[in-house]
Every structure is written in structure tokens, then in C-alpha cells.
């Protein structure tokens, strides 16, 4: 009983809290990093160096008036942010944050596919938000979003197939163990796939330079134009939770999850003194930082260019990568 119910529930509770809290600090990190990139200071008022800004923001959002436009579809308008947040949180169930069983909730044999399929549900949140607002800019944004997310989902899934081929398993823990066995992070085995997943991940999470659905300068905020208060905050949470998911997936698939660098070289065994979860979070942080960095640097793609990139560049490369991986797998 304790083994099957209490411990998993405890883990879920801890993980959910950790994710939600880290999301609020992600916003602070993003504001700070972008500010430094732009030779500003960023938030400095709340607490020392503005660290309490991460708490002030959610409080503000909770206390704000939550407005539903008169002509909106009330049910869908409320449902949409929930739909976009829940899948983002559900996928954490299969992310292994460390080597020990303590650090993941479950390890299912279709783990990677589970992540892909559950995140694909998140698109409904954006589409329904745009539709339910009964407003033109959100509608445009949601049409953009649905096309963008489906296209990039294909590209990312295709790319992941080559990783699955290399690892020979769909389980997230299994993939890390496969990297341990082969002694190489798959980032070195599958560099093309790594780059494709990174680009696709940016597009899947609607981050710059692919933030078409919420392009403020074009669509005045996109699908969440009509949202305010807590419902807006849910979208916000979903976006950052998705960023964390993508970073975690990239870490697991390409950067050896909780493994230390060069797991096969015994001379570096002293690195194992650092606990596995620290390695994991360290790697994840690198990718989160990368996401923010890219946002501060790059202009935004145009919608048709984005689709062209997805269909005419990423998908063909992904297919080519599968073929090459398959041949290599057979030959070696």
C-alpha cells in the first residue's frame, strides 16, 4: 500500500510543487538574463536584486480581476488554459531526474512516446483559447498555432525515431542506460537529431524565434490577448513548464540524463561524487539558459518561413537521419 500509493503520491506532490515554483523563478531568470543581455538591470525592487519578484508576480496575477469577454464562449474560455497546463505537468511523470528510482515517478516502456503524445494535447489549449475569445487576433493566432505545432510535432517525432533506433528502447530510463552502456552521450552519436530537436523544441514551446502564436508586435499578444488574471497565469505556467519539459527531454536523450560527462572513462570517476540529480539539473539549466539567450538575440520568423523551415528543411533532414541511422545500425 505504502509502496504503491503513498510514495508515488508524495513524489507527485513534491514534483508538482517543484515545477510550479521553478516556473516562477524561470520568469525571474528570463527577465534577468534578457536584462543583462540588453545592458539593463532587470527587476531590482522586490527583495535583494529582485529575487522576490518571482513571488510578487504570481500574487499580482492571482489578485487581478479575471475578465471574461461578454461574447466569449465561457466554458471553453475557462477550459483552455487548463487544457494547456495539464499536459505540460503530466509529462513530468516519466522524466527521470536522477539515476535512483527515487528521482522519477514511473518508468513506462513507452515513455518517450508518452511525452510526445501528451504534449500534443497541449495544442488544444491554444486553439480553444483563440476560438473561445471570439476575437480576431486570437483567432488568427490559434490558426497559426495549430498549423505550427502539428508541423513541428511531425518533425520532432521523426527525429526522435532515429534516437529510439539508436537506443533500442522507448523508456526514458532505458535511453539513459543505453547511453551509459555505449559510453557516449547521444549528442555526439546523433548531432543532427540533437540540433533538430532543439529547433523543433523552440517551435513546440512557442518560444522566440518561433513565437508566432503570441507575436506581440503582430497579433497584440496572440491567443491570450483577451486573458487576464489567473487564467493568463496558467498559460504562462504552461509555456514555462513546457520549456522545462523540452530541456529535460533534450537532456535525457542527448546529454546523457543524469550521467557525468564521458561515463565510460574511468579516470573521470571522481565526478561521480556529484549526485546524479545535480548533473541533470545542471544540464537542464544550460538548455533553459539557451532558450532565453536565443529569445534575447534573434528576430522572429515569419509564418510562411516557419512552415517552410518545418516542412522543407527539418522533416527531410529528419527522414534522412532515420535512413542513415538505420543503415548504420544494420551495418555496425
Amino acid at each position: 500500500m505504502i509502496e504503491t500509493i503513498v510514495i508515488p503520491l508524495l513524489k507527485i506532490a513534491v514534483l508538482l510543487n517543484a515545477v510550479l515554483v521553478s516556473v516562477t523563478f524561470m520568469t525571474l531568470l528570463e527577465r534577468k538574463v534578457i536584462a543583462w543581455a540588453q545592458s539593463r538591470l532587470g527587476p531590482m525592487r522586490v527583495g535583494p536584486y529582485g529575487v522576490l519578484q518571482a513571488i510578487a508576480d504570481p500574487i499580482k496575477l492571482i489578485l487581478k480581476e479575471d475578465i471574461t469577454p461578454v461574447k466569449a464562449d465561457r466554458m471553453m474560455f475557462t477550459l483552455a488554459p487548463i487544457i494547456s497546463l495539464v499536459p505540460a505537468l503530466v509529462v513530468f511523470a516519466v522524466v527521470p531526474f536522477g539515476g535512483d528510482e527515487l528521482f522519477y515517478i514511473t518508468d513506462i516502456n513507452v515513455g518517450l512516446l508518452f511525452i510526445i503524445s501528451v504534449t500534443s494535447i497541449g495544442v488544444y489549449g491554444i486553439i480553444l483559447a483563440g476560438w473561445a475569445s471570439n476575437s480576431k487576433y486570437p483567432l488568427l493566432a490559434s490558426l497559426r498555432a495549430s498549423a505550427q505545432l502539428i508541423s513541428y510535432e511531425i518533425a520532432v517525432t521523426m527525429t526522435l525515431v532515429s534516437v529510439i533506433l539508436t537506443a533500442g528502447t522507448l523508456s526514458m530510463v532505458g535511453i539513459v542506460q543505453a547511453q551509459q552502456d555505449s559510453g557516449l552521450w547521444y549528442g555526439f552519436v546523433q548531432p543532427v537529431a540533437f540540433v533538430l530537436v532543439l529547433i523543433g523544441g523552440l517551435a513546440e514551446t512557442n518560444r522566440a524565434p518561433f513565437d508566432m502564436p503570441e507575436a506581440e508586435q503582430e497579433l497584440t499578444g496572440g491567443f491570450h490577448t483577451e486573458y487576464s488574471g489567473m487564467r493568463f497565469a496558467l498559460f504562462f505556467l504552461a509555456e514555462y513548464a513546457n520549456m522545462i519539459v523540452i530541456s529535460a527531454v533534450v537532456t535525457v536523450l542527448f546529454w546523457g540524463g543524469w550521467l557525468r560527462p564521458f561515463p565510460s572513462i574511468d579516470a573521470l570517476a571522481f565526478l561521480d561524487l556529484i549526485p546524479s540529480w545535480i548533473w541533470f539539473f545542471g544540464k537542464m539549466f544550460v538548455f533553459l539558459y539557451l532558450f532565453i539567450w536565443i529569445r534575447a538575440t534573434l528576430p522572429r520568423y515569419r509564418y510562411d518561413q516557419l512552415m517552410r523551415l518545418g516542412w522543407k528543411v527539418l522533416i527531410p533532414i529528419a527522414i534522412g537521419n532515420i535512413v542513415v541511422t538505420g543503415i548504420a545500425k544494420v551495418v555496425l
Partner: protein
Amino acid sequence: MAEALAFYTLSVLILGLAVAVITTPNTVHSVVFLVLNFLCVAVLYVFLQAEFLAVIQVLVYAGGIVVLYLFVVMLVNLGRSPEEHQDPRRLGLIGLGLSGAVLLELAGIIAYSYTREQSPPVTAAQASPVQGNIEELGWLLYTDYLIPFEVASVLLLVAMVGAIVLARRES
């Protein structure tokens, strides 16, 4: 016990959502109910030890096909409900009756087949070693069912081309 509880809950959800799909006047709501229905079916698959299918159900059905429906519903932004126009030749009641008859017939068949003395169960011909094994499913797909598989892929290709041709605007 737990399985029964889960089954009945899911059954009620599946049927209830299905009824909601076909009765809701608002098409977008219909689509959302359909998605929820498919998610419940996916959970059912998990209970039937078909995890791969469950994931595929979510990925392809809920994440792909139904998004298409939603897309189309939003594109054909309806000014008026299609239900307003009634073709006098349409016999809705008879349709309802016919469906009821089909339900009765199906129920009859099931009842008949199970009240009869158990016919020898279909033998698990060459029982697969592991259940719900993706690897096994893959083997089956790529060996015994290779030709249907290829046919299916050609079908998808044709459908893709067809959809593009249909949706393309003449410029």
C-alpha cells in the same frame, strides 16, 4: 474490483461523451468532447495492455486528426446552425429507429453468443510471447502484415495528395 470500477467509470464516460458529441449544438464543443472521448478510450487501451495503441490513440487521434477537425470547424466559421435547415425528405425519426434496431440486434447477438454453451474459445494460435510488447507488434507489422502495412502507407500518401488537391485554391 479495481478493474471493474475503472471499466464502469470509463464506460460511462465514453458513452456519455459520445452522446455529448452528437447532441451538442456547438460544433467546437462537440470536437472537445470527442477529444475527451478518445482520451478515455486510450485509458481503456491501457487496461487492455495495449500501451502502444493507447499512446498512438492519443498521438494520432487526439493530437492529430481531431486538431484537423477543430481547424476545419474554425475555418468554416458558421453564420447559422446547419440544423436550421430541414430537408422535408429527411426522415430523422426513422434514422433514430434504425439505429435503435441496430443496437438491439447487436445486443441480441452478444446475448445469444454468451448464453449459448461456450463454444470452444478461439485458440491463441501461435500465442505471442509477451503481451503489449511493442517489439512484437513491430515484428508482426513488418513481417506477416508487411503488405497491408505498405498498402496503408500508400493509402495515407494518396489521402495526403488528395487533401492537398482539394484544399488548394486555384490561383
